[in-house]
């Protein structure tokens, strides 16, 4: 048999194109790299959808661990624990990380007039919600803890990078903002490593990074407060963004038929009781989304909507106990309600 070179080339090219045609297209089934670990007091998962390597994953988790070691109140040797231990005694020098997050938390405390307050630590410790054996503390203890909560008594010195709690017994707790900061730090690593698409899930705080290969928008579900985890009330659709939710359904306990959740009102000393069951924030920066979800939950719908006006391109979805969904201006562009048992409130 004799074959011409041209004929052979034609055949090979055709065969390759045929084969390629069958496997090209969206990488729906491409193997992704992912890692899950217990960090920042919760379960964190990072999925590299397009680009990146195991080294990227290891670097991100190393960074998360580093932030936890600096800011956790559950580690005796963390910087925040040292600041708390030195309350009323002397200022403590902290890392740039910790100083930045404490300063940012104090900025939110100032902006919300104390609704968001990183010095809530004595109340958090007293209620101890989510750690087992919870019960409503005696009123006397709530009053004593409440008296130690005052963000204006937290002194920070940018020159020496020192943090000082002026009254003995005061405690910082960065639980409402540190995970947001951590997600932003993960984003920096993903950018440096030229990752094209990734999903960062820090205990339910979501950061969808980059753009998927098939160019379709990201779709982030917002947890249905009344259903099992993973059942969504609605979907947020868009490009790179972060979605953070504060809700009454994650950490709570019941006593005498009443639910006591973990979002505390520093003025009453009790869990916030304003009819809201969750607030979700959609934003570009996770530290803001994290602080805003707690801030807006505590402020409530009216004050929260007003407060949000100063944050451009940031949207909020409020859900109340009557299954009404309130959207901040513009949120309708990114949020779609799916669950028919909820309805969009007239505004």
């Amino acid at each position, binding site marked *: 048999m004799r074959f011409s070179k041209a004929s052979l080339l034609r055949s090979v090219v055709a065969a390759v194109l045929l084969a390629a045609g069958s496997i090209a297209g969206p990488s729906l089934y491409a193997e992704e790299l992912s890692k899950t670990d217990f960090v920042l007091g919760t379960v964190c998962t990072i999925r590299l959808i397009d680009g990146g390597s195991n080294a990227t994953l290891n670097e991100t988790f190393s960074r998360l661990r580093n932030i936890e070691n600096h800011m956790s109140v559950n580690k005796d040797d963390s910087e925040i624990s040292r600041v708390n231990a030195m309350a009323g005694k002397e200022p403590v020098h902290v890392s740039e990380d910790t100083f930045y997050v404490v300063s940012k938390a104090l900025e939110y405390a100032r902006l919300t007039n104390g609704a968001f307050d990183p010095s809530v630590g004595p109340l958090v410790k007293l209620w101890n919600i989510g750690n087992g054996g919870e019960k409503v503390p005696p009123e006397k203890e709530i009053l004593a803890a409440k008296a130690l909560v005052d963000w204006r008594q937290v002194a920070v010195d940018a020159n020496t990078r020192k943090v000082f709690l002026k009254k003995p017994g005061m405690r910082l707790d960065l639980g409402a903002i540190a995970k947001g900061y951590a997600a932003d730090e993960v984003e920096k690593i993903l950018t440096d490593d030229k990752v094209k698409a990734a999903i960062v899930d820090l205990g339910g705080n979501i950061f969808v990074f980059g753009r998927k290969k098939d160019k379709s928008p990201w779709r*982030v*579900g917002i947890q249905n407060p009344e259903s099992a985890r993973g059942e969504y009330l609605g979907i947020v659709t868009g490009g790179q963004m972060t979605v953070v939710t504060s809700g009454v359904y994650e950490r709570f306990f019941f006593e005498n038929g009443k639910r006591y959740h973990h979002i505390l009102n520093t003025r009453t000393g009790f869990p916030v009781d304003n009819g809201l069951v969750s607030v979700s924030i959609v934003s570009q920066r996770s530290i803001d989304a994290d602080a805003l979800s707690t801030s807006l939950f505590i402020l409530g719908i009216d004050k929260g909507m007003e407060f949000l006006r100063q944050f451009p391109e940031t949207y909020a979805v409020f859900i109340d106990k009557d299954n009404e969904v309130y959207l901040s201006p513009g949120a309708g562009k990114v949020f779609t309600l799916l669950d028919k048992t909820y309805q969009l409130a007239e505004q």
Partner: protein
Amino acid sequence: MKFSLKVHVRPLDIVIFGLAAVLVLGTSLLVLNRQSGTRYVQITGESGEWIAPLDKDAEYEIPGPLGLTHVHIHDGKAAIIDSPCKNKLCILAGAISEPNQWVACLPNKVFMRITSSGGKDDGGVDAGAF
């Protein structure tokens, strides 16, 4: 103007197209098989990671720093039915079956997530915020 279309098929052309057809068929079957959306339970503990099919009833004991966490897979759902933690939130979380749903026993460092081999089987959601 005159056009002529002549197709010369040679023996090697047939062989190569045959190989390409096999390749096409093989990859198509692979893709279709994965589109069926088989669900798995991915369990992560301190000492490693386990993956089990969700459609096969089974029980597993996952070791953690506090002891054994018992995972029960039944009727296409997975649940933590016992764990040596204080608050038992992992048990109260109930059974999970949908892709990306997860349950964790934080004190015993056991994490369980539903995954799917088919990307279209996740309800069209990339991630869930809670």
